[in-house]
């Protein structure tokens, strides 16, 4: 069981490495959106600092969503998905391997980039640490929930818009608590409640999303 998980995970990483331009797009998008805000809003440090958590989170969320289409799209088109479904290993397990690879390729780099971009907005000290912690808990949720949306819209024309419609409502709680954690910390209040709720969301998504994804993939392949 572990061998197949590792095989799927490694193949996705290898594939992404061979097509670096594709996934670097996601990261560039994140950096560009976040960097444009100070230019548009103006250079006063105070409004920028208050807006920073929201801007960083919204940009991370949109960047993660941009990459969802490719999550199962290629596998669906070239027949690999059929082989994954027919594999002796449970499909939710293999879906989780793909989700983990997606997180490593988008969530982790976004989390690493975020504090650097946060400095642009005058965030420093504890709020920066809270930002990283919140993203570490929140970005896996984005991959998990996004996988369900991506699987549900496989083979549908105009799937990109549909994914956004399906997934964004579910992303909103993560956005609220993620940005809330950083804002609370910047205001000198404890960020613990926000982070706990994010962690609870992560556990819930981890428990449900692989199964929902697998069910949607089976329907798509039929």
């Amino acid at each position: 069981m572990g061998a197949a998980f590792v095989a799927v995970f490694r193949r996705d990483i290898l594939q992404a490495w061979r097509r670096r331009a594709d996934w670097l797009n996601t990261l560039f998008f994140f950096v560009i959106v976040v960097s444009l805000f100070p230019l548009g809003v103006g250079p006063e440090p105070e409004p920028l600092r208050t807006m920073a958590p929201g801007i960083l989170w919204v940009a991370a969320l949109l960047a993660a969503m941009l990459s969802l289409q490719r999550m199962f799209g290629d596998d669906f088109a070239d027949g690999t998905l059929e082989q994954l479904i027919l594999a002796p290993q449970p499909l939710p397990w293999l879906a989780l391997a793909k989700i983990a690879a997606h997180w490593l390729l988008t969530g982790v780099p976004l989390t690493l980039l975020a504090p650097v971009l946060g400095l642009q907005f005058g965030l420093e000290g504890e709020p920066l640490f809270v930002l990283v912690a919140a993203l570490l808990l929140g970005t896996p949720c984005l991959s998990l929930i996004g996988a369900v949306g991506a699987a549900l819209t496989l083979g549908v024309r105009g799937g990109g818009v549909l994914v956004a419609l399906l997934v964004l409502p579910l992303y909103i709680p993560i956005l609220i608590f993620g940005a809330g954690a950083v804002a609370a910390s910047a205001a000198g209040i404890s960020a613990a409640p926000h982070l706990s709720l994010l962690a609870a969301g992560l556990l819930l998504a981890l428990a449900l999303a692989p199964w929902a994804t697998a069910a949607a993939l089976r329907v798509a392949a039929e």
Partner: protein
Amino acid sequence: MLEITDLACRRGERLLFRGLSFSVGAGELLWIEGRNGAGKTSLLRILCGLGVADAGEIRWRGRPVRRGDETFARERLFLGHANALKDDLTVAENLHFAARIAGSDGTLDAVDRVLEACGLAAVRGSPVRHLSQGQRRRAALGRLWLAQAQPLWILDEPFSALDTDSVDRLSALLGAHLERGGAAVLTTHQEVALPAGRTRRLRLDA
């Protein structure tokens, strides 16, 4: 080994087939014939578990096959229209991955032997995107060489896009598979020399 009773499949309003019953024993090959759109691919997808039948039952070694049946999943191999190859990975990497997923022998040695056997040793390290249609099909068929442990092969148009050499190689491989007591179900539009005496035909549109 494989018994089908009263199988029916409908696509939208159209009934593809119904009351279909047949069995495939050890060492037997079933050649499913029929014009385009007769439901050959649908039948194969139902047999391997990708599709759902509207009625009927599939039994493997006497036991009804259920969705997510792990023993059945280990014992059957499906090769569809799509090659299931990744354009950016090399031929060897693709085969290695396919073997690991199917739970068959996926060591690098085994992959090398297979590439030798299906005449792809020269393009071992090339990305699949540089291969011709026929070479891609051969690379996909490489999974058959790795799947010696799976007794049931379900093959959808395995001979398409192959040159005569490869057709002969594949026929020989199928012969060896049946010799070992394996079973196979396949569709093809080409007249190929399938192992005589072990092949039965089934017409879907009869």
